[in-house]
């Protein structure tokens, strides 16, 4: 559980949040041009097709870029700081904003392999996908 801003969802985006509630990361996949896309839309941004289906993805990706925020971008994040805010590039292609948690912020690097994890937002029934470094054995 952590305090965060609560995302406003719509009918179109509900499958994303339902998947997260079940600890799965799902994004749209275009049956016409075979591309994953994010964020959710009514039409594929590549080809305009409405034939988009939801697919559970691997949850694996890499850090495209990141920063360590020392000052909370909003008071609700005061207990998170210093926090790592990152652009994650999923193995399936799409990029998304997320946090990298469960590690010392100083160890985060661009290109680092990460995997999805799930965090429940305080005072809500919303589960938020976040990322952690892939453990190397």
């Amino acid at each position, binding site marked *: 559980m952590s305090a*965060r801003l609560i*995302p406003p969802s719509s009918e179109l985006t509900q499958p994303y949040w339902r998947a997260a509630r079940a600890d799965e990361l799902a994004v749209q996949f275009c049956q016409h041009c075979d591309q994953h896309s994010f964020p959710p839309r009514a039409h594929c941004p590549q080809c305009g097709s409405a034939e988009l289906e939801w697919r559970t993805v691997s949850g694996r990706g890499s850090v495209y870029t*990141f920063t360590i925020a020392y*000052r909370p971008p909003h008071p609700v994040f005061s207990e998170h700081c210093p926090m790592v805010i990152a652009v994650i590039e999923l193995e399936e292609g799409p990029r998304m904003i997320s946090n990298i948690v469960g590690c010392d912020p100083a160890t985060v690097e661009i*290109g680092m392999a990460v995997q999805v994890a799930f965090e429940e937002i305080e005072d809500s029934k919303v589960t938020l996908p976040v990322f952690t470094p892939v453990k190397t054995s």
Partner: protein
Amino acid sequence: MSLKGAAAVVGVAELAPQRYTGDATILDLLSGVAVEAMADAGFYRSQVDGLIVHPIGGLPGFVPATVAEHLGLQPTFAEIVDLGGATGAGMIWRAAAAIQAGMCTTCLCLTGTRRRKRTPRGNNTNADTSRRPRSFSPSRDRSPQAEFDAPYGMLGANVGYAMIANRYAHEYGLKDTQRAKVAVDQRKNANANPAAIFHDQTLTIDQVLSSEVICEPLHMLEIVMPAAGAAALLVTAADRVADAKQPPAWILGAGESVTHSSFAQAPGLDATGIGIAARSAFSQAGVRPSDIGLASLYDCYTVMVLLTLEEAGFCARGEAGAFVEAHDLTFGGDFPLNTHGGQLSFGQPGMAGGMSHVTEAVRQIQGRCGARQIPGLELAYAHGNGGIIAEQTGLVFGAAR
């Protein structure tokens, strides 16, 4: 078909950036600079038949009509531009395009923001956690960013530009001192500009790098300070330029690009909209970056200047850090950049912050910059940037048509 030589800026007015503007309404502030810009050009109100404004907080809609009525104008062309920091530059080519299309002959471009003193927000660490940013209130904002970015703290611009700085450093290498050099040289320019908010303060690289790190790697003194202020520019048709009291700053070329809204969807740093907008502007004008005598580049953060220098073609890819180290960026230097101080040292009065790069380019071309005047300046480039490198507008100005 291009905009080259269709119109020129002939009147300029600016309310110098200040921390607070008391009880003045935004309409009062805009009215003040509008009247002053018309007087500067020596144009009567009846000669102004075009108006461009931007979204204004507190005015839910009908902004051009509200502002026009307040100013006593009945324009035949009225427009709103919503391109974040590229709004000011975006207004100028739209004015020229409307003139070229015969929709108006003289167009007023207005930007500004007011600021009232409030209880200091502090550093967000001890503040009331129940307060949500208004723009991300779930009932009001259904944007994809409110849903997929804000829950992670991706709010405001510091986070995004810090990510750009880290990605740039990863791809090409970049030293903290190289970013700081931009802020320091621009401060020297501000020291020669009485209208700049930091006119009376000097700045060193050590001071920049010893200021608080807000979002790694960006320090407090690499980040613009919000201010209040306003700017008005008057654009007129080529055949009316002779009526003006001031020399013209000819609009020779323009380019624009909008590539994304969420930074997660931004193109790579070697394929930004900055380059698209700049190449179009230079191509229309028929000039090269090396012909430009003043680079007036949007500088919400130090790193934005570096990115624009190379994406617009002033230096080779990956060499912006070395370029700013090798050149004197002051008004008397070998590569004059943001001679008004840039927004980092001039102040960022909302949309008038982005317009300040245009205003400075115009005044330098007109030869009206006093102590910081670049002698014999013939060509200037002004660049506007909105969002997290999302919206880009480039303009080439010339002393000759």
